[in-house]
């Protein structure tokens, strides 16, 4: 009799409603983010590449070649319109490049200090400060660049060597974006630097290394691929950065490599144009989507490369 009871509990599955419910809710959460991404891509493609019905998408009116290689950006309707993205592209890369020049040494230096030099208590103090830096809204950085860095630091400094600086310039925009992405580089690099095995450090110390020898000759080279991935991620963040650049960098779409002048970036053009009053199906409005796609492709590519490098780095040490 006892035996038949034993069989009964094992052979009958209980259907638990709340388990099913929780599973469904969690699935929806995951699905929603995927759907959002899909919707964004659809909207971008639907306006830039192929539009159903009456209206014509951007690339049905402007060739891809013209878009990628044209050096004039004049997004107006009618025959006067010029849609070459080079000016916006150069503005974007100028800002991202200057940001990298600022953030790579600062971020890497901070990461090395935190992982190799700082006492645990110092680290506990430094990390939150970096996080505060990362938490400041980018609008504030923009005004900081426009109202402080440009007039109070760069203008007097460049004035000493006889250079003239515009009120809007990519230099100050790049510098603040650099400050913005420094915490990103510092915290990602610190993670990879700390994952270099302790045994490697001990071996280096045992050979008569100073702290700097250990950091510069062993730890950083061993973590180099991971650090590189951090740089790339920060570069991609800098490319996508918007508000600070809109405020400090100006709105003139000119193809220039002079950081002392203002320039429009891809992101600041998008802000500028979407607040304008052009008709929804006009080509000037649709150019926003074309730039959006270009931006999306660039940052996605960089992020994928960086993710791939990071994965390979982890395989080495885990």
């Amino acid at each position: 009799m006892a035996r038949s009871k034993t069989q009964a509990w094992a052979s009958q599955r209980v259907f638990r409603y709340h388990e099913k419910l929780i599973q469904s809710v969690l699935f929806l959460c995951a699905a929603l983010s995927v759907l959002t991404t899909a919707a964004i891509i659809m909207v971008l493609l639907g306006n830039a590449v192929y539009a159903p019905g009456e209206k014509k998408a951007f690339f049905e009116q402007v060739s891809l070649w013209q878009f990628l290689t044209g050096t004039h950006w004049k997004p107006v309707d009618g025959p006067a319109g010029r849609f070459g993205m080079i000016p916006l592209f150069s503005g974007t890369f100028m800002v991202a490049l200057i940001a990298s020049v600022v953030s790579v040494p600062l971020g890497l230096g901070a990461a090395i200090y935190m992982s190799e030099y700082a006492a645990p208590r110092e680290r506990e103090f430094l990390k939150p400060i970096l996080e505060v830096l990362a938490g400041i809204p980018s609008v504030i950085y923009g005004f900081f660049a426009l109202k402080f860095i440009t007039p109070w630091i760069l203008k007097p400094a460049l004035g000493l060597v006889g250079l003239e600086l515009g009120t809007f310039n990519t230099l100050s925009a790049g510098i603040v974006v650099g400050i913005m992405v420094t915490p990103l580089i510092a915290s990602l690099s610190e993670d990879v630097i700390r994952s270099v095995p302790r045994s490697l450090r001990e071996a280096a110390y045992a050979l008569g290394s100073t702290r700097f020898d250990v950091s510069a000759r062993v730890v950083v080279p061993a973590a180099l691929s991971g650090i590189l991935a951090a740089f790339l991620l920060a570069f991609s963040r800098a490319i996508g950065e918007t508000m600070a650049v809109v405020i400090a960098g100006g709105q003139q779409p000119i193809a220039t490599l002079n950081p002392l002048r203002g320039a429009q970036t891809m992101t600041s053009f998008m802000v500028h144009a979407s607040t304008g009053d052009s008709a929804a199906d006009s080509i000037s409005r649709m150019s926003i989507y074309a730039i959006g796609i270009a931006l999306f492709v660039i940052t996605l590519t960089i992020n994928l490369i960086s993710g791939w490098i990071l994965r390979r780095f982890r395989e080495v040490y885990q």
Partner: protein
Amino acid sequence: MASITPKSVPPAVTGVDRDLDMSEHSAAIQATGVDFFYGELKVLFNVSLIVPERSVTALIGPSGCGKSTFLRILNRMNDLIEGARCTGEILVEGQNIMDPAVDVVLLRKHVGMVFQKSTPFPKSIFDNVAYGPRVAGEKNRSVLADLVESCLKKAALWEEVKDRLTTSAMSLSGGQQQRLCIARTLATNPHIILMDEPASALDPASTDRIENLIGELCANYTIVIVTHNMQQASRVSHQTAFFYKGILEESGPTSKIFTSPSKKATQDYITGRFG
């Protein structure tokens, strides 16, 4: 019970003469009354030991007995551990290395260390061996090349790697990596080499090569080796020190420790009764 005591010790490797008269050798290391703490935890109690120069001293004892900790005191490696504290006196070639004024960077060039886990840097074979001299400021390419060759020869690795010095050290086998680490240590021109279970992660053939290498090196270097392997301790050492629960129970000539130890704990340990 006394019948378990081994009356014979396995033959020593070539180069290790266990009948060597150590009274002729001056002391490379002289530790007196060493206590060691990890925070509040005391792990070494009043350890005193003399290591004669150009000989091999084996530190044995069960896990957690403090033998590795003692080894790492000798090149101040424990400085890297938060909360570690050491008192007592340790003279390395007459200088008290516990003195706060001692330059640990110079000390560690003088007292090299080989670890249990081989730790080649993710660099080429050449760059691994050249690391120490480079850190010390040597830049001359031909001086470095000569040094790398002679150290790899001393570590019995030259013939296996001479045609691929520029390939990554990670491509070597475990035993080769450990000999590379020995070559790397030799390149800083130390007088003393500390070995922390250098063969415990290796296969028998590689272990054999490391033991023979110790036999060759002890003609010119003072070696202190920590090992779990009793047979290994008896094969490669002139002197054995037995640690138990943070106390140096007994030390003396290896042939004596392994045939007629004076403490019961030593006898129990070497006959495999515990540990």
